[in-house]
């Protein structure tokens, strides 16, 4: 990992704690405490990834997402509080890649950062195969394998799994999945629930307590492969 990471949070303790860990993993860390400073820093340092706090003193972090996106290929991970589901969803819909609840566990944050970086680096050359944990997807042959055994999926199940795999390790909103599976972001989430349940039946050891297809209550689903 040698990414340039911008920590955009008005709480200095967050930057103080994160800087040594991120630097130790080879990243370059830039910090900013306001929206104005943050945009400037992101431009000047051509950062790859932004850790964005939604509650900035001079702006709503959410409103900053489109401007950050315009700067080029970069990942945005929102730092949010639990119980702000509506905020999270609108930040994700505005173009954020993922979110982490505050207070966060450093391991979780690092995993999310890795997932975001993986997605960015894999974006350009279209891969033929997805491999994560026990799960492999052969895109050319439309073949899904779990621990080497082939799993038969219906076309819709396959589409949903691919949408999740394209953002492996990251949350994918209900809206996004409905668009991927039904071409309509406003479709009934009941359909989505049913198909996720079917996928879990086929891929999970215990579908009642999934480890692969995780539910993010009120937000979406996450493929934890």
């Amino acid at each position, binding site marked *: 990992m040698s990414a340039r990471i911008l920590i955009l949070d008005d709480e200095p303790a967050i930057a103080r704690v994160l800087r040594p860990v991120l630097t130790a993993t080879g990243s370059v860390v830039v910090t900013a405490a306001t929206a104005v400073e943050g945009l400037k820093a992101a431009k000047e340092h051509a950062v790859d990834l932004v850790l964005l706090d939604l509650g900035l003193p001079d702006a709503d972090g959410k409103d900053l997402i489109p401007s950050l996106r315009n700067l080029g290929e970069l990942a945005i991970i929102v730092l949010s509080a639990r119980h702000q589901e509506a905020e999270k969803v609108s930040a994700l819909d505005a173009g954020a890649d993922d979110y982490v609840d505050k207070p966060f566990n450093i391991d979780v944050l690092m995993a999310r950062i890795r997932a975001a970086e993986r997605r960015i680096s894999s974006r350009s050359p279209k891969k033929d195969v997805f491999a994560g944990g026990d799960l492999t997807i052969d895109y050319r042959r439309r073949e899904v394998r779990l621990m080497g055994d082939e799993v038969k999926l219906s076309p819709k199940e396959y589409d949903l799994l691919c949408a999740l795999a394209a953002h492996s390790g990251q949350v994918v909103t209900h809206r996004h999945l409905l668009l991927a599976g039904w071409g309509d972001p406003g479709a009934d989430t009941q359909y989505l629930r049913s198909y996720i349940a079917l996928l879990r039946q086929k891929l999970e050891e215990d579908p*009642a307590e*999934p480890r692969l297809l995780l539910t993010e209550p009120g937000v979406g689903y996450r493929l934890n492969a």
Partner: protein
Amino acid sequence: MGAGSIRNAARPWREGARSIPTGRVPAQALAVFIFLLATAAAIAAQRAQLPLTAAILYLLGVTLVGGLAGIRGGLAGALAASLIYNFFISDPVFRFSLVSAEEYVPLIGFNLSAAASALLAGRLKERALAAETANLQLKALLDLSQRLQSAVHVDQIPAAIQAFVRSIGRTAPELYVVKDGEPVPVEGPGKGIELARELVASGVVRLALADSLALLLATGAGPVGALVLPQAPGSRARQRDQDLEAFVNVLSITLERCLLLEQLSEAELIKRSEEFKTALLSSVSHDMRTPLSAISASASSLASYELPAEVRGDLLATIREQCERLNRYTTNLLNLGRLQGGLDPKHFTECDAFEVLGTAISRARNVAGERGIVKCYRVDSALVRADPVMLEQVFYNVLENAVHYSPERSSIAVAADVEDGHLLIDILDEGPGIAPGDEERVFNRFYRAQPPSSHEGSGLGLSIARGFTEAFGGSIAARADDVCGGTRISIRLPLETRKGE
């Protein structure tokens, strides 16, 4: 101005009596019929050479007509009768003459008896009408006092007096409550506020204007309110002084009672909220300080001493655990705030309770240590209407409670079933159970079982679980399990019924 207005207000009473239907038209027709019959009978009697019978028959007829048709009709009948008698019946026939006593005595006799009977009948009728009206007014008053007696809130009063107000020919009563000497409308804009203000300021009991009546509502303690009664369009105001007085008395007492009740509940509310704040503060300071001191001690030890790797690992683990504890606690406080602020069902969505339950169980496994969480579901999918994050908190809080109150290496069972339109989720632990009588108290804020177990909870978890569950239209109850003696917490949530399914 006051006294004149009262007289003015009281006067329409007699007119009010008239509006009660009396069946006058058939009575008049009957009077005409009797008149004609008497005329015919008198003529026949005269022909039969019975002049005395003729006169008596005619007198009888006229008396009856007077009784039936009232004073005007009676007199007209009597006049007509005397003319006919004079002209057609008495000698000389076909000629008017008022010379002899034979000729003018019938005229006077007929008219006097008709007038007397009409007056008597009229008095009788009026008495009956008055009795009937008084009865109606009494019933309205009785009904009113019954309605007012059941009122506990000022808002209920206008509806309760509506019927009575209409019975006295008024409409849309405007009720004012006197606060700091100023009348404040109970509902609506208070169009008659000027009138109410004048009333309260002057202390006059009753003010009657051309289009509205204002009444001061006062008790021994002074004015409590005012009532402005606009006249109903198209009807004339009518009320008796004594009814109005009774009305004002009952209303004043009710208003005072409602206001006192309000003050009482306000005081109660303030007291409870103060108690709550005190409890919250003492709990916060205790629950925050304990993990903070552990963190502070561990961090300073790590900074100041060269410690063996094993000890350092322990201290670091302590810091992490205590941070999690602080986080749990702040989350609960936040949830408490949301509950206090009231939850808006508009933000609830349809969600699969089992999906949420699975997430909560996964999270609970992280804190369960060596306790096993066993699922025994009879259904594996159930739609409920809830906020998914809050629902997860409900399940998690109950699971966490089970973890904290049960020994290591015991198991926690999660059972699920569906029963008459409800999802039932039971979470059963192998802990010490609940002392009899404590089944409700465990849901109280800051309640912690005695003796305190090794765990350091906030005493908020189950209280929040109950608050959220009830917000979703469900219920939650705790009891000691009959078989294993542990605690069984049962969550009951109404199943979402989809339209068209």
